[in-house]
């Protein structure tokens, strides 16, 4: 079911992230997309994530459309100024894309082109505002467009942010700017997430809980030490360490999290980072 319809229904929505290739060979990308096709409601296409240069998220979103998958076109503010952003958003609409996820984007200092100019002409809140304007048939200078857009606008929120108040203020700005669904950053503390969900439900938005597949205990340690805002608790790390097959255990943990989300949340967003072929297994196990 398309993302818009799925979110409008009472159904538990599942999205998953697919990462574009570092080049023009799209065979693995397409193979993963086909594996996911009947398991998910929409697939997110990342936009040069971690500031590593890859095939464009717009091009890959169109490839997903051709495969009959509803794409969530991820768009960061890192690489384009306001003219290029608006132009690409209009372009995405004419090519048949219906969902956009607006993000600030990782800083270039994390990526493979550390000497690049970080653009950030707009921030994620302003980008959501701009998409709302384009949806309204106007550009960001209020000039009428010869044909506008009608995107379902999404944004990101970090439910475990510490301190949380500045993050929640920003979340509320994104809501008032026109974001209608949120895919959260990865979290592992379900009680904390429930509290966030109760707060977020005061607003007219859908929340998809971010599930990040733990491939191994080593990866969990890496996340804790290197990825800001992600906290894998000690008991999960122990569970992974004591398992004969850590990847299998990681899949089991992800499925368990989704099962728990199904009890109260609007949906889940699965980030498998290079393990896309295991996403169907996670979803099957969560049923």
């Amino acid at each position, binding site marked *: 079911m398309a993302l818009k319809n799925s979110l409008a229904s009472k159904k538990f929505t599942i999205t998953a992230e697919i990462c574009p290739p570092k080049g023009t060979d799209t065979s693995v990308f397409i193979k993963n997309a086909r594996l996911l096709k009947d398991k998910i409601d929409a697939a997110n296409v990342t936009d040069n994530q971690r500031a590593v240069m890859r095939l464009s998220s717009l091009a890959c979103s169109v490839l997903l459309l051709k495969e009959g998958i509803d794409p969530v076109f991820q768009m960061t503010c890192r690489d384009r100024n306001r003219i290029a952003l608006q132009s690409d958003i209009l372009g995405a609409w004419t090519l048949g894309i219906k969902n956009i996820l607006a993000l*600030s984007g990782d*800083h270039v200092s994390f990526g493979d082109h550390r000497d690049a100019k970080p653009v950030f002409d707009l921030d994620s*809140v*302003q980008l959501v*505002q701009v998409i709302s304007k384009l949806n309204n048939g106007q550009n960001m200078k209020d000039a009428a467009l010869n044909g506008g857009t009608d995107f379902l606008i999404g944004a990101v929120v970090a439910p475990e942010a510490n301190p949380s108040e*500045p993050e929640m203020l920003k979340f509320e700005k994104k809501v008032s700017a026109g974001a209608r669904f949120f895919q959260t950053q990865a979290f592992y503390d379900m009680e904390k997430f429930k509290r966030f969900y109760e707060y977020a439900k005061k607003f007219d938005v859908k929340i998809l809980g971010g599930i990040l597949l733990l491939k191994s205990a080593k990866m969990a340690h890496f996340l804790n030490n290197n990825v*800001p805002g992600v906290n894998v608790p000690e008991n999960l790390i122990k569970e992974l360490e004591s398992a004969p097959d850590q990847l299998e255990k990681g899949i089991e943990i992800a499925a368990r999290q989704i099962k728990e989300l199904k009890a109260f949340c609007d949906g889940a967003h699965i980030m498998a980072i290079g393990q896309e072929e295991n996403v169907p297994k996670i979803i099957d196990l969560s049923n």
Partner: protein
Amino acid sequence: MGNETAGDKPQRYMLLAPPCIWAIFERELISVSTIWKFNMIITKKKDFQKILEYLKNKNKIFLYGCNSCAEQCETGGEKEIKEMTLLLENAGKNVTGFSLPDETCYSMIIKKDFREQKKTIEGSDAILVLACGAGVKAVSDTAGDEKPVFPALDSLYLANVTRYGHFFEGCALCGECVLGETGGICPHTNCPKGLLNGPCGGMADGKCEVNIENDCVWVRIYTRLKKQGRLDVLKKIAPAKDYSSGVRPRNTIVESRIKNKKQEDK
């Protein structure tokens, strides 16, 4: 300005200070009173190999330093002019002479200096400037189209001075000050992404993901505005920045200053 000796300045600060305190602070105050004369531009030395590339096929070199910011950064004062002279001579170059203006970015000073050094400069193949880009610009404009002028430094930022030898970037000169909406803490200068509506997803435990030594500027802004009872300011969406005021090159003429000067001259 540089002709004034720093030593005769500090008296105004010490009227009420007991001698022991004065002894401790004397050095600091002398430097502060010196620094206060300048807009502080931070520079760093270019790699010497790069400088040799510039000066390939140029033998007779005239040097310019700058006795304000670059002197403070220890990149273009008397000491560094001497070091550069030695390096160039060891590399087989002939340093024809040097000049250390009080402010190398001040075109009038450079023009006057050029007249004084006319013969030496005319007899040189190139000029190497140990000053910020504005200093290089003033020298190269004065040198005209015939004489090659090269930078020995990279210009980094406009600095605040915390104390002698301690600098940090306090203003990005963005052209549209937002400090009124951010509790006096600048997101343009302090957030690596220059975000205007709150922290990014990389904020963790109040720290910045780009450099975890640094506090997230949006957490600092939030904390300060909360203390001031002004969180309502943060709830409004900050509009996209207007970059039209920053179209380059920028020039400013202060009319009243020109009028006053003309009257003085009469």
